[in-house]
């Protein structure tokens, strides 16, 4: 089990970070931290290039984050046509940033750079899985 069911369209499967998907299925969005130097990684890395170490640990990206920017995509590329319009956003959480979609529960007029967010797993059609931002 890897990334084959991640997002609307996945382009690759195998990864040392495949545990991310197991955590996501159990309701958690996780990042990695190098056990030697403490550097945190999102997107999660299985390897720390500074320490040349593959001893990393998972930690949950919990709590409130902040919306850094967003865009409502009206024109989806191949494979995403049915999703459009969707709103992509960059959120900043404690020590990491995440690109994801904003929940459709948030109305466009209520979206503001700087607003508080949480990030959580979301089920997509056909047993696919991703994470999304919700209003905190």
């Amino acid at each position, binding site marked *: 089990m890897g990334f084959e069911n991640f997002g609307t369209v996945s382009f690759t499967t195998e990864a040392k970070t495949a545990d991310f998907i197991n955590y996501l299925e159990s309701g958690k969005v996780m990042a990695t931290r190098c056990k030697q130097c403490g550097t945190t990684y999102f997107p999660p890395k299985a390897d720390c290039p500074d320490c040349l170490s593959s001893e990393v640990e998972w930690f949950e990206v919990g709590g409130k984050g902040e919306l850094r920017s967003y865009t*409502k995509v009206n024109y989806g590329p191949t494979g995403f046509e049915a999703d459009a319009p969707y709103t992509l956003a*960059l959120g900043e959480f404690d020590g990491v940033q995440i690109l994801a979609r904003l929940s459709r529960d948030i109305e466009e007029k209520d979206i503001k750079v700087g607003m508080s967010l949480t990030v959580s797993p979301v089920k997509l059609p056909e047993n696919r899985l991703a994470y999304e931002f919700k209003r905190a």
Partner: protein
Amino acid sequence: MAEVAIVGAGQTAFSRQCGVNIRELSFEAFKEAMEGLDITAEDIDASIICSAPEYDKQRSPAGLISEYLGLTPKPAFYVETVCSSSSTGLRVAWSMITAGLHKTVAVIGFQKMSELSSREAAERMGRGGDIIWESPFGLTMPAGYALYARAHMAKYGTTEEHLAKVRVKNSHYGASNPKATYRKELGLEDIMNSEVITSPLKKFDCCANADGASCTIVARGDVARGACKIPIWIIGLGAATDTMSMAGRESLTGLRCAQEAARQAYKMAGIGPQDIDVAEVHDCFTVSEILAYEDLGFAKPGEGVGLIEDKQTYVDGKMPVNVDGGLLSKGHPIGATGGSQLRTIVRQLRREATEAQVKEPEVGLVHNIGGIGQYGNVTILRR
């Protein structure tokens, strides 16, 4: 350090559908670059072929194009930094000449985007990001720049009208560029009323996919002096990267790869932004030109819109930018774009840009960005 110059610069007309194959397209650019030079194909020691992969069925296009241009058995290879591939090619050519490996090198950029539908091309470009962590959300190239646009607006009060004014300018110059895909002048209303592609960017905030090729002939100083009347000297080169993922970006109000590339290029040339007489910047979107004004030091952070508001980037302004119409008018055949920008600056410095000639420029700059700010390249040229 050896002197290195551009002796010839050519491009095809950029168009929605060229109707020829990539070798024939490359020949047209090569022909324009070589015409009038006192060297022939035999004098070219190596060729660097630049494009973004997965648009053509042809694998390893370097050998193919090298053969068609009569450059076999000279060495040929492929370089790629998506939209800045041919600026990277120029950097490699400069390095090989400076190292003493070759005297004269051809840098050929090409892209035939009409091989794919617009949605398919958008999907390819989306995979120019992080395909595990970000492409599965439907990230596209315009969406990435839209994130920068929204952040710039939130921090500095930049408006959609400010962005539209960049297109007004570039469409004005594009209208008189025979090589441009779009040759129609657009008014502010045309742009403001065009459909929203990815907010806040509208249709006319975006450049178009295009077919095209470019060619830059680069030579060692002694060869350059004998090969052409006015060698255009490469006096500054800068190159840098930023993270592939959007999640890794520290700033969303400027491109760090461009800021760093500019710093290197100015340092190598021993000059500053105030010494640039004419510039070509990577306006894949209107917001990209505003970011470029600031990243290159033409304006302070947050003050880039002042340059377009005051028309200072028009041909008779303090800092003329994209007076060939830019990517917004010319279209953006990915691998060919850097070479097209270089060609414009070469023509400007040779004072051959009859459509829109800046008054007696001595020093010009090219800013060419790959992807959503993943690869930054700045080149400074002097007459």
